[in-house]
């Protein structure tokens, strides 16, 4: 408690903290022990807020004071290297806004929605515990490491502190995670737009709106970002309403009615254009729009949940914890920890924490609020997504999210299977819901976006009346698609830069970001790579999410493991090895879950889990003539997909272990006083800024 008291604890008396702890404990106890028909979502909000408040007040204060020894008198890179642009001391609330907008993407919305198939309890506990002991700590400590190293990136720090092997592993991990991430997110958008003229029209309109904003900001009113953003948001809302009009017109609706493969090709084409077009034209204006919508909608959702306190219908635990779940296969352990990466611990954040954010901080002490606090906010978004998924009738939730390969393509068969699991749902109920939402069908709309949109529409419609359900549904779809596409085009561009950097070593002109053939060549390779996985997901009879989302989760957790390896090495080398458990404990947990998940994906005997078992099963069925004709035609590709996914999983496993062993080696040598790569912290300089 001492460390906490020094950090301004006098403002809130200890008695209040005891009360918060008691309220939080009873809310958590209520969530865990409740076995009624429904549970009110207020329990979750209260439990989450208490957990975050206590963790921030005590644990982050301990990490700040004892482990990292944050020093407010030490000049930050923003102060020392101030160039007025990249490095610039900035107000801490503004940095917080930038940082949160950068880390919070579609991940914390989708992961919990999918993990709700286990019931609300496992996912919620992992989001809260994993968040405060894992994700927040990772973001905070990587931000600190980068702050003390002139804002260096994770890859550079891995190379400096661990050696070339660590640097290479980090680079390879970032590259592969980017590819898988883009593919799986694109798949989510495809599934949300499949045979939905309203959704497709609205999402398509975001492109001309962004182009208009780009031209507006470039030539009509240069630099007037706020003006352009307001115009953009108004146009976006008009596009949501206009989609309804398109949907009702028999001639127009066919123009926007596509199947999965067609949409996949369009997104591939879009990704390529976004990677090669100038940023001011498409990427930057899209990003302004998506940030605006993201912050606005998340705030609105939080407000609506607090005001309405909807009841949740999902049980605490479902029978699917045994690994037979329809949405993704695999047992509760380790798959709940893989499915929810963003929101609990997400390795990708370490790229942001060692990217723009450390170059803006004016005061080193603010790293706690921005690194630890920013991730707490994201974790709260994940809790809200979990609530939105569990507000739905479980039968409806499973009907929307289960792929036809598991429950049957025919609605009657699907409802029979799902009702048979003990989650009653009828064809009529689904038809009414689809009609209310302005969709042709809501069966087998895998990927999480449609079910989250139904949940959000249900919540928002309580404020507006059921008449606006369809509008809210498509607003939510547009909101998700908007920032998924922003991640997609920004990610493609970053991967292109990384590839050009790599190619530049072999043939210098390829490394120049302005040489058009080099740009086209490397963009094409990146787009081909994620396009391959996207297409594989679209044609997969099990819906694609089943195989790609775990792959993404493993990749993201592996990147988190790499970040925690760097953090642990830095703590050990700084002479505070007795506190190394702060990062070593979450690291150990991540290594356990990624290793078990990767092992299950490779070698599990159940065809829905094990990739190799799946390939063998397909072959056996083909030999016995038991495959339906369209699958016979795709057989070679399906087998090849399994092999690619298996090879990738094996690569992840190998990279993780190489890095963990390398970290153990460097830490051991540091503890023994043997030679290690040098500790690269920049020496102390007194800050001249008055804090």
């Amino acid at each position, binding site marked *: 408690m001492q460390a906490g008291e020094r950090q301004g604890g006098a403002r809130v008396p200890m008695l209040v903290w005891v009360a918060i702890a008691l309220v939080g404990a009873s809310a958590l106890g209520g969530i865990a022990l409740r076995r009624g028909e429904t549970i009110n979502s207020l329990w979750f909000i209260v439990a989450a807020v208490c957990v975050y408040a206590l963790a921030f007040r005590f644990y982050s204060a301990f990490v700040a004071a004892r482990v990292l020894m944050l020093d407010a008198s030490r000049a930050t890179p923003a102060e020392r290297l101030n160039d*007025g642009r990249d490095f610039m001391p900035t107000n801490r609330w503004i940095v917080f806004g930038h940082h949160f907008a950068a880390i919070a993407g579609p991940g914390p919305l989708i992961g919990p929605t999918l993990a709700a198939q286990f019931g609300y309890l496992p996912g919620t506990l992992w989001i809260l515990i994993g968040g405060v002991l894992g994700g927040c700590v990772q973001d905070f400590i990587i931000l600190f490491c980068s702050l003390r190293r002139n804002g260096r990136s994770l890859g550079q720090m891995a190379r400096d502190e661990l050696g070339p092997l660590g640097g290479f592993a980090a680079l390879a991990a970032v590259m592969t995670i980017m590819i898988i991430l883009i593919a799986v997110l694109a798949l989510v958008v495809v599934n949300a737009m499949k045979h939905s003229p309203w959704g497709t029209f609205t999402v398509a309109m975001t492109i001309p709106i962004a182009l208009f904003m780009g031209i507006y900001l470039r030539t009509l009113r240069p630099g007037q970002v*706020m003006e352009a953003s307001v115009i953009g948001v108004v146009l976006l809302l008009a596009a949501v309403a206009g989609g309804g009009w398109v949907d009702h017109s028999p001639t127009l609706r066919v123009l926007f009615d596509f199947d999965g493969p067609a949409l996949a090709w369009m997104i591939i084409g879009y990704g390529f254009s976004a990677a090669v077009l100038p940023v001011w034209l498409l990427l930057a204006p899209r990003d302004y729009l998506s940030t605006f919508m993201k912050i606005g909608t998340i705030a609105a959702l939080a407000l609506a949940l607090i005001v309405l306190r909807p009841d949740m219908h999902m049980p605490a635990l479902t029978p699917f914890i045994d690994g037979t779940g329809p949405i993704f296969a695999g047992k509760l352990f380790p798959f709940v920890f893989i499915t929810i990466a963003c929101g609990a611990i997400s390795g990708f954040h370490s790229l942001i924490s060692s990217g723009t954010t450390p170059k803006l901080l004016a005061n080193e002490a603010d790293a706690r609020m921005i690194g630890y606090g920013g991730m707490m906010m994201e974790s709260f978004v994940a809790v809200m997504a979990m609530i939105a998924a569990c507000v739905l009738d479980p039968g409806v939730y499973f009907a929307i999210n289960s792929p036809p390969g598991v429950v049957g393509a025919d609605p009657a068969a699907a409802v029979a299977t799902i009702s048979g699991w003990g989650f009653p749902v009828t064809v009529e109920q689904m038809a009414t819901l689809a009609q209310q939402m302005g969709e042709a069908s809501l069966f087998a709309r895998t990927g999480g976006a449609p079910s989250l949109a139904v949940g959000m529409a249900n919540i928002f419609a309580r404020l507006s009346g059921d008449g606006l359900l369809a509008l809210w549904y498509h607003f939510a779809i547009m909101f998700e698609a908007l920032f998924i596409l922003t*991640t997609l085009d920004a990610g493609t561009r970053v991967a292109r830069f990384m590839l050009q950097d790599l190619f530049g070593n072999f043939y210098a002109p390829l490394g120049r970001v302005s040489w058009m053939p080099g740009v086209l060549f490397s963009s094409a390779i990146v787009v081909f790579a994620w396009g391959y996985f996207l297409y594989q997901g679209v044609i997969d009879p099990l819906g694609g999410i089943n195989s790609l989302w775990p792959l993404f989760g493993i990749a993201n957790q592996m990147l988190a493991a790499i970040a925690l390896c760097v953090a642990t090495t830095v703590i050990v080398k700084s002479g505070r090895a007795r506190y190394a458990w702060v990062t070593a404990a979450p690291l150990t947990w991540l290594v356990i879950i990624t290793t078990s998940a990767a092992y299950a994906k490779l070698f599990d005997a159940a065809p829905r889990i094990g990739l190799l078992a799946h390939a063998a099963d397909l072959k056996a069925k083909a030999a016995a003539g038991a495959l339906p004709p369209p699958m016979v035609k795709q057989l070679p590709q399906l087998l090849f997909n399994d092999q690619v996914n298996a090879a990738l999983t094996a690569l992840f496993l190998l990279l993780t272990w190489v890095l963990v062993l390398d970290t153990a080696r460097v830490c051991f040598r540091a503890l023994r006083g043997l030679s290690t790569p040098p500790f690269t912290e920049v020496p102390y300089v007194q800050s001249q800024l008055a804090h």
Partner: protein
Amino acid sequence: MSRASSRTERAVAWLRAGLAWWNGDAAYAAFVEHLRAHHPERPVPSKAEYHRAETERRWNGVRRCC
């Protein structure tokens, strides 16, 4: 009376600062101030030029997460 008016003034100033941050005025003003203080020999870019260069620069790294 005077306390209330100073509170209003502060609120207006706060709102203005927020707006300036949103529409990019704040970043531009800060950059110009930095140039004047540290590199008086360099030309001061117009807001349009600044915005153009900033957009290019900002997109050369990881900006968005999952």
